[in-house]
């Protein structure tokens, strides 16, 4: 007897751990361990559908007809969009597998040892390696063996943070995998994780002088803030000879693409946004969202992004009552490298002892 399948009955299990190699799945023990595996509920169902490419003989000449007679599979891939209400573990997991480098420490080891702070940065091919970290995702579309799958070699191709008004912040991640999968039920999948939500209304936005940006949260148009990160896979070199249907490696192929935008309203007589636009002064921008207290505190769940040296484009959008509304935007060319300093850091604080472990 077939079981009915509903989105509510599907299961998604993520894991802090990275694979040891392309094509080597994480163990089921890692996926179900309370310290590494975590089951989350996305905003909507996600698909485990594998992408396939084919060659057909439809274009061959001298067949005597116009049609294909056969086709052969040439490549596999996996791409799917996952979105979640923002949670401190998910924010770290997504950023870690998108950006590729992490340092985790205990901010208060003696007084509050369960709190862990994760500083996440873009992988630096000149310092370490070009190989992005890969993980295995368990996705159960239905309680049927072939629809209970471990999706191998997954990474986060890009992610964004949105802050819809009066709702949790929104995390969206485009997952990229090799298309390898191993079917079969995951025995005893983890219970659904308790969310440590990060709410849009708790967003603090600071902008201004490097090292001491000013809190301008009260001047920000609700729902207007959006941050995004995309890394560039080296597709041309990801399928080496002998790899068959699958990628054999996943290298970083180009600079990460960073984007941030927000709308700011000021009194008509305030020239600050125009000054920001004309001055070309390098500034700092910081988004920070606190959640609930961890353990006995004072540490809290949080997610944060810092642009340590940015120059904005500022466009006047129009009037709203006695206010003037401006849009600040920071495209990939607006994030400035100064010496050996970091350009961007994402920091998350939660209960996990590490990611990419």
């Amino acid at each position: 007897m077939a079981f009915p399948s509903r989105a509510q009955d599907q299961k998604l299990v993520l894991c802090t751990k990275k694979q040891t190699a392309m094509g080597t799945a994480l163990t089921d023990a890692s996926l179900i361990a309370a310290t590494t595996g975590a089951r989350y509920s996305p905003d909507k169902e996600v698909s485990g559908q594998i992408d396939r490419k084919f060659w057909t003989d439809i274009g061959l000449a001298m067949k005597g007809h116009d049609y294909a007679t056969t086709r052969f599979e040439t490549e596999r891939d996996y791409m799917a969009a996952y979105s979640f209400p923002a949670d401190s573990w998910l924010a770290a997991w997504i950023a870690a597998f998108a950006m590729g480098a992490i340092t985790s420490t205990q901010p208060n080891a003696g007084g509050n040892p369960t709190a862990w702070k994760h500083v996440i940065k873009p992988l630096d091919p000149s310092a370490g390696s070009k190989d992005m970290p890969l993980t295995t995702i368990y996705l159960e579309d239905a309680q049927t063996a072939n629809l209970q799958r471990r999706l191998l070699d997954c990474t986060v191709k890009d992610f964004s943070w949105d802050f819809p008004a009066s709702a949790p912040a929104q995390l969206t991640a485009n997952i990229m995998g090799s298309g390898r999968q191993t079917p079969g039920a995951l025995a005893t999948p983890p219970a659904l994780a308790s969310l440590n939500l990060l709410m849009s209304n708790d967003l603090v936005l600071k902008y201004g002088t490097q090292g001491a940006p000013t809190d301008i949260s009260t001047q920000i148009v609700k729902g207007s803030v959006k941050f995004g990160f995309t890394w560039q896979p080296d597709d041309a070199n990801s399928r080496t000879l002998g790899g068959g249907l699958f990628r054999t490696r996943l290298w970083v192929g180009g600079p990460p693409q960073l984007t941030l935008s927000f709308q700011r309203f000021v009194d008509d007589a305030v020239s600050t946004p125009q000054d920001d636009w004309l001055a070309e002064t390098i500034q700092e921008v910081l988004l920070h969202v606190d959640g609930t207290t961890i353990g006995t505190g004072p540490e809290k769940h949080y997610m944060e992004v810092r642009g340590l040296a940015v120059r904005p484009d500022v466009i006047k959008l129009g009037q709203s009552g006695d206010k003037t509304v401006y849009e600040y935007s920071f495209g990939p060319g607006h994030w400035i490298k100064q010496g050996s300093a970091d350009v961007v850091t994402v920091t998350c604080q939660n209960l996990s002892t590490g990611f990419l472990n």
Partner: protein
Amino acid sequence: MNREDIVAVQVKGGGAAHFSMGMGHTLTLGPGESSDKWAEGSPITRGEFEVLLSRDGVFEIVEPGTEE
């Protein structure tokens, strides 16, 4: 690479910490622990320490004679 190029590292202040970059270069140290190898088994070189581990100020080299 010679023996002098390999360093043992510990967490400043003696706490626990974890570092990871890309597919390799993973280091997890508990309180008071030190290691001269990445989790993947290869030795930690001085260059890797300087480029990868020293930047956040979390890890430091164990100077000879200071191991616990």
